[in-house]
């Protein structure tokens, strides 16, 4: 089959690889009908995540049809149309039983590595380095899906692929980010980063009752899409984000702040070069520029919610602000499976049509080109969906 594989920094290739087979009793094989490129994969593309191997199959946002099931599979059958959650979760451990699926204790065969880095390991993730298990990803014609009973949602009715595909990651990720803000009536939510997760966070914040959403980015097409979603926008290259946020909130600050940027943050001015330099000298792995600003801007007693990906150590963390302002920080890889049912219901009721975020459609064979334009934010690219 054809699969999009990682070969090094900004080097993706679509190559022929063997078809996947059932390796565990609860596996299934899914024939992919749609797959997307996730913003978090750009961290792999730019080689910020250790333990990638040449030839690793990429992709953790995908859906398709089950064509084979292992002997221990109970609730899925050949022919089922399913969306697959990006974290791999066993459904039986302490965390899965609490529906904290991205913290599954049993799904990462390389957990020992993550334990050295984080103290404990998160769940396995498709196509996301060997730190999270080294599982072959979904930018391929076929994928092996472990724990298919737990990790998939069946799509029974007549939705298009693009309407439901993002249940795999970015819709629940944006939704969980907003849910973690514990939004109250009259609340203002500020969101750093208007990529796909930021876009879903904007819409989810409104779904959860936010009065006002302020979105911060620098790309016109992203700010435009944010305004389409009902947000007020700030272009941080044209105005100081903190000052403007204070102005529009009467100096109090947003009730909650979402960092949907993560470790490759950007900002004009010397602080950016400070972090860039520290990163280059390997004395800091992540650039927490958006996070620092979110912490500084957040109102006293507010919540900072972090769906943006961080991989290691940051520098100049304003812990004094977190403590003295009594902030709550909530974060985590998304427990995507937990959101399958409620979000599918919202799509069914017409409260949201996730396909709004798609700007580019292409063939799987063009995946390397897709990564290139997505990485360079060229051609108004916000979200790419590929079909085999």
């Amino acid at each position, binding site marked *: *089959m054809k*699969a999009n*594989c990682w*070969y090094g920094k900004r080097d993706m*290739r679509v*190559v022929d*690889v*063997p*078809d*996947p*087979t059932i*390796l*565990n*009793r*609860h596996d299934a094989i899914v024939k992919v009908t749609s797959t997307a490129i996730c913003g978090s994969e750009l961290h792999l593309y730019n080689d910020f995540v250790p*333990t990638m*191997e*040449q*030839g*690793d*199959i990429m992709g953790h946002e995908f859906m398709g049809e089950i064509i084979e099931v292992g002997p*221990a599979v109970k609730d899925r059958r050949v022919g089922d149309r399913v969306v697959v959650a990006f974290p791999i979760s*066993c*459904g*039986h*451990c*302490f965390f899965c*039983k609490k529906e904290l699926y991205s913290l599954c*204790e*049993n*799904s990462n*065969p*390389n*957990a*020992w*590595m993550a334990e050295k880095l984080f103290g404990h390991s998160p769940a*396995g993730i498709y196509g996301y380095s*060997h730190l999270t*298990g*080294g*599982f*072959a990803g979904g930018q*391929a014609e076929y994928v*092996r899906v*472990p*724990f298919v009973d737990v990790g998939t949602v069946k799509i029974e009715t007549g939705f298009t692929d693009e309407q439901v595909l993002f249940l795999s990651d970015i819709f629940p990720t944006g939704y969980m980010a907003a849910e973690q803000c514990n939004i109250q009536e009259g609340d203002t939510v500020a969101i750093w980063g208007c990529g796909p997760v930021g876009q879903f966070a904007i819409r989810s914040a409104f779904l959860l009752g936010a009065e006002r959403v302020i979105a911060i980015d620098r790309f016109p097409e992203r700010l435009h899409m944010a305004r389409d979603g009902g947000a007020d926008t700030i272009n941080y290259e044209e105005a100081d984000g903190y000052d403007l946020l204070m102005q529009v909130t009467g100096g109090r600050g947003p009730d909650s702040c979402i960092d949907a940027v993560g470790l490759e943050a950007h900002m004009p001015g010397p602080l950016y070069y400070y972090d860039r330099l520290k990163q280059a000298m390997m004395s800091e792995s992540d650039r927490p520029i958006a996070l620092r600003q979110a912490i500084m801007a957040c109102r006293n007693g507010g919540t900072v919610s972090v769906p943006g990906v961080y991989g290691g150590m940051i520098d100049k963390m304003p812990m004094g602000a977190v403590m003295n302002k009594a902030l709550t920080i909530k974060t985590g890889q998304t427990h995507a499976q937990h959101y399958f049912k409620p979000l599918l219901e919202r799509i069914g009721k017409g409260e949201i049509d996730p396909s709004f975020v798609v700007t580019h459609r292409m063939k799987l064979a063009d995946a390397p080109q897709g990564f290139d334009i997505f990485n360079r934010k060229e051609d108004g690219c916000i979200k790419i969906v590929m079909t085999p």
Partner: protein
Amino acid sequence: MDLTTSRSTLRQLHTHAARNGEPGTVTQTQEERLAKGLGWFGIGLGLMELVAPHQCARMAGLPSGHRPLIRVMGLREMASGFGIVTQSTSAAAVWSRVVGDMVDLACLSAAFLSRRADRSRLTTTLAAVVGATVLDVVTAQQLSRGVKTRNGAVRVTASTVIDRSREELYRFWREFSNLPRFMKHVRQVDIHDEQRSHWVAIGPAEARIEWDAQIIEDLPDEIIAWRSIDGAVIDQAGTVRFEPAIGNRGTVVTVDMEYRLPLGTVGAAVAAWFGKDPSQTVKMDLRRFKQIMETGDVITTKGQPAGREESTSWKYDRAVR
């Protein structure tokens, strides 16, 4: 309860030490003692370099006239030493010695270029520093990997919480023929009778190791303890305990193993060099035990497709086998 000290008072069940009438009174491991020794040595040497740089240079065969440099080296040597003797976990400080060794080696190599150097003394010094470097590297690595050798035996403890009853876990473990399903280096266990069994394992450098073991304590649903029968190549003893987790959260399984490799500490170091890190191996074994008991399977990526010749990711898995 003081958790710091209760660790060392874990039941010293049937270990070799206990059998020899030296119950676990030694709280310091051999690695820790070796590290402390290196630390005090470093402080002594550093002090000499600091107060008598000229004499030190002459003894080492170095050209004269580098007093400030030698004093700085002495300070560095002492700093590493103090780091080691004052910290309870001194792996980082021993690694700093390794860095210092590299600097020493570089300086000594540079000294060879000088005409004023005493080549024969310098060669002796270089050999000594190379020896010290090897000792430092091995010690640092053992400490980093958490290898604990006491009385010549490696001691490993690991535990995990499994969401199953004590009865289920005990029953599965007590059926020793199940063990190779999650103990990666154990290939086969043959049961002779209620007490005795024959074990086949793959050891360092893929060597096949066999031994006979007998059960020495067996409390259903609580504890199984075994040890190798006298004369085994690997003299080992182990216990697995099943205790209810507080808050009704399943069972805490704790494995406590102690074994003597041929050649003691050196054997343990050699084994670690070959990638058989005992504490990591036991941890991974327990993780696989949990996977089987909770999900019915050991999850793997071995055999999945990839765009490379060697088809999968299991080198990361293998790193701890």
